């Protein structure tokens, strides 16, 4: 399945990334594979570990696909939680675009 030439897709994360959101988020990421992805984490208020797991798996999948996945505009809550739970993957915590 060849990726189409198109601009990077974008995904805005929900405010509450809890247990209920994990499956949603997973489904979205799976469906968006194959193209570059920009994730907007500006509206995130709460992050649960399960969503962090999904995001990290996503980062790895995109690496495998040799596509770019970047988290843009991470909210404070998003950054702090990632730091708290010890996730220091550059793609997830990069503040710059």
């Amino acid at each position: 399945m060849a990726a189409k030439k198109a601009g990077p897709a974008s995904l805005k994360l929900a405010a509450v990334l809890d247990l209920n959101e994990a499956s949603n988020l997973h489904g979205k990421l799976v469906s968006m594979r194959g193209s570059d992805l920009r994730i907007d984490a500006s509206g995130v208020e709460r992050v649960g570990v399960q969503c962090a797991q999904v995001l990290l798996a996503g980062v790895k999948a995109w690496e495998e696909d040799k596509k770019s996945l970047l988290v843009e505009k991470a909210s404070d809550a998003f950054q702090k939680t990632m730091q708290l739970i010890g996730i220091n993957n550059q793609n997830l915590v990069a503040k710059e675009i």
Partner: protein
Amino acid sequence: MKKKVLTVDDSRTIRNMLLVTLNNAGFETIQAEDGVEGLEVLEGCNPDVIVTDINMPRLDGFGFIEGVRRNEKFRAVPILVLTTESDAEKKNRARQAGATGWIVKPFDPAKLIDAIERVTA
């Protein structure tokens, strides 16, 4: 933003104590008198955390917790069991039913608030 707490307890005394304690601590409080009512009001009130008694008429705490956990929308809501039962058996059953944590009665306000803070973001 105020956190919303749903309390479920058949004792008017305890309901009032919870209400005063939670309101003083700046929570928004919704109250139900037993498990059946608890499940009824759940949908409308969308709580951040639930505090429930175990021994109640109609539907006890165990049944109520199971009911919440079966609900797609609210299965992730933290539930604290408020009970005078301090023994492991009750706690074990509450956990099996899906309780997040517990508070032993007679609760003191600080402990209640502390427990709520622990399970909510």
